[in-house]
């Protein structure tokens, strides 16, 4: 079947087998940050942003993304550089083996979109669908809060508006 959607800002038109999962499709297209850790929605390693919301790509059929906008870890950095979440994960030591990292980034990006200044508890809820076996999550949780602070301080302030805490 023929399918068109947006991947990391570029439009994609491709043929896909009707039974293929979104994970299989994206990996086949070279978006290998979408990791296969369990193929049944348990581990979160295949999380991608679908119209801005984190979903596990192994549980969706490829055909379900017709006309939608998909972001993967490959599309998180822009021409200016790494996304604050990527920077913060590096600085905080939130990356060990790095296999779960792309999925964590997607879940965290979704969270910060909805909740720009999350508490530790909110970060823990936001990442509860992502398994990491290396870190114990301490430095990942810290990194998401660090990234939130980075993004808040980088947000352009409207004229006349007071600058909040740094």
């Amino acid at each position, binding site marked *: 079947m023929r399918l068109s959607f947006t991947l990391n800002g570029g439009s994609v038109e491709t043929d896909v087998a009707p039974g293929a999962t979104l994970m299989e499709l994206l990996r086949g297209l070279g*978006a*290998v*940050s*979408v*990791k*296969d*850790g*369990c*193929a*049944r929605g*348990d*581990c979160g*390693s295949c999380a991608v942003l679908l119209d801005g919301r984190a979903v596990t790509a192994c549980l969706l059929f490829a055909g379900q993304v017709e006309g939608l906008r998909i972001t*993967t*870890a*490959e599309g*998180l*950095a822009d021409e200016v550089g*790494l996304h604050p979440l*990527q920077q913060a*994960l*590096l*600085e*905080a*030591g939130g*990356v*060990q*083996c*790095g*296999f*779960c*990292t*792309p999925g964590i*980034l997607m879940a965290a990006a979704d969270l910060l979109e909805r909740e720009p200044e999350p508490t*530790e508890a909110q*970060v*823990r*809820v936001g*990442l*509860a*669908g*992502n*398994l*990491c*076996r*290396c*870190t*114990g*999550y*301490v*430095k*990942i*949780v810290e990194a998401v809060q660090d990234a939130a602070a980075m993004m808040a301080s980088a947000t352009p302030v409207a004229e006349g508006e007071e600058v909040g805490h740094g």
Partner: protein
Amino acid sequence: MGEKFEVVGHNERKVDGTALVQGKPVFVADLPERAGTLHLALKTSPHPHARIRAIDTSAAEALDGVALVMTHENTPDRPYTTAGQGYPEPSPYDTRMFSPKVRFIGDRVAAVAADTLETARAALDLIHVEYEVLEPVLSIDEALADGAPLVHDEPLSDAWQADRNIAAYSEAVAGDVEAGLASADASVDVTVETHYGQHAPIEPHVVSSYLDEHDRLVLVSSTQVPFHARRIIGYLLDVPVHRIRVIKPRIGGGFGVKQEVLLEDLLALTTLRTGRPASMIYTREQEFYASRTRHPMRVRMRLGADADGTIQAIDMDVISNTGAYGTHSLTVLSNVGSKTLPMYNLAPNIRFIGRAVYTNLPVAGAYRGYGATQGQYAMEVAIDQLAGKLGMDPLEVRSKNHIREGGTSPIFRELGEGREGVEQTIGSCELPACIELGAERIGWANKRGQRRREGSWVYGVGMSIHMQGSGIPLIDMAAASIKLNDDGSINLAVGATDLGTGSDTVLGQIAAEVIGIPLAKVIVTSSDTDLTPFDTGAYASSTTYVSGTAVRKAADEVRGQLVAAAAEMLDADPAELEVADEQITAPDGRSVTLEKIALRSLYGANQHQIAATASSVPEVSPPPFIASFAEVAVDTDTGHIHVLDYVVAADCGTAVHPRLAEGQVEGAVANGIGYALSEDLAIDDRGRARGVDFGRYKIPVTLDLPMIETVLVDSYDPTGPMGAKSIAEIGINAPLPTIANAVHDATGIWLTQSPYTAERVWRALREEGIDASEV
């Protein structure tokens, strides 16, 4: 202490980090698939114990797209071990690629290589197997019973007593333990039992293979042991080592399970037989039931002490369940004693007896902690029980008895890994500081013994202390090569295998420190059997200490060559030159940059490649130490344990990269908490593992864990590179006893069987007559 470092001890950016956060194709399964790649699928035994009477693969072979079907009938009948250990491996050669007798549910029956994975899987269903089902051995007790069925009834010379289902035996004796126990003022006798746990790396085992342009076999593998994998595959398939290349890209976690050569043989044989590239990934279910696990054990610990708390006798009796094959059976077993007993080294009377038994259950192997996890569980619960009998604070009993700097233990000499150990004196031990800092941070003085209640919840604190090693002395060997490039950067090639721990970064820091350059000027390559020098691999907490020492030595040599070249260029006395900030400076202030030295040595005068290779085989294995503390709440209604707070104070010598070191502790503790509370392979009464997906094998998520805190205490080991010891394994040993001791503080029950599920705790509370109505 006192050394000042520029790169070591700093939280440098992880050398592979930027690629990883961008999801670059760095893992085996991410690399482009070669044209004509075959995909492998595995048929495993549905019976715990059976003989294959007949196997018919004709229909599978006839299926369009199938290239090869492998069974015991057409593969090498050569005994070997999957244990990726030094040669000769101290594990029995009790395994074959395929055996006519299957020994656990999940044992190999056949493998199919086909054009697509779907075809390979479809072909599996077309293989008809006729089994003669045999009586299985499904527990330690069944294995040791008179007249038990034999898991290995084939001729097997290197298991301890295969005719009694005993794969391995280990013992060590010092003094007279019975006399010591008999004359003790206080004694305890406790038996703990541990269960089947699995490593659960998020990346399962994955290997791809192909023939290069010279028809050499290339294996790209997610392995902790590329050099052992090359040797073992060469032996098993009768291929000269020089015809094999093993490449390790990034690894998505290992924790010991990738110290096993589990898939490489299937890929190698497929590519050798067909000439085609091949690839195979374990499914998550196979990763759980058909890879490796932690040895379940029964450990009986008897302690005897004087009235003042001085321990006089320690008796440790261990039965380990190695499952169907004896991979790591002897070495994990001996480690139960060798990593547990030296902690309380004042005791003059010590006895250790261990047996590892075969069963028709999943195969155990190397798993972070490597026997210390089980042994220290028994010891640290016994110490708390002893403190209770003596009416002493558990901190006091430990402080009175634990090993210190300058101390030794006969166990270091008596118990090695599969052979005699190596004598050593402790060169660094900051346990007193660890205990003090941890106790203060958890609030020991205010919270211990309070049994505070809130609704149905009751609160308690507990602790335990731990040691590990830093490599295997006089066995582990590592080498490193460094060469200088035009711009003053260096290539650092190490056989050491970064499996996600950050060892590439740590080793790069050591080289950068010695040569006086920033980490960004170190290009780290690990590991490729064609391109990097030998290293036994990433296990036994060896990389920072053993491989780090090789890197330091190679860097020292390169530094010496740089200084010699600079002395020529500056016409100065080499002894007076200073190396720092990418340049070499004479006392009068004149200097040359490393770039200038490099350009001169490559293109100018006295042309030569500034480079060195060095090796390290340490004679000792300095233990890191930790003190572990937790505060728990126990719901007396449901038996649920909530870990509220967790603190580890650690002595790992110099922390080469403090944040990565903390990450090792936190990850290990998280894994240990999961093992203590919720992770369970859950073997049923037929021998089938039920916990074979992340739904049923419950590893901790963010919501299950507190903000684990790591305190790195100031320490320096005189034998380590820049004073460093290991840190990666030790933390996993802590949660079993720390949580058990905290639950006892809260409720008065002793948890001596893992995991501490709500049901098990609830039953224990009821047996003690504790329920919510008491609140």
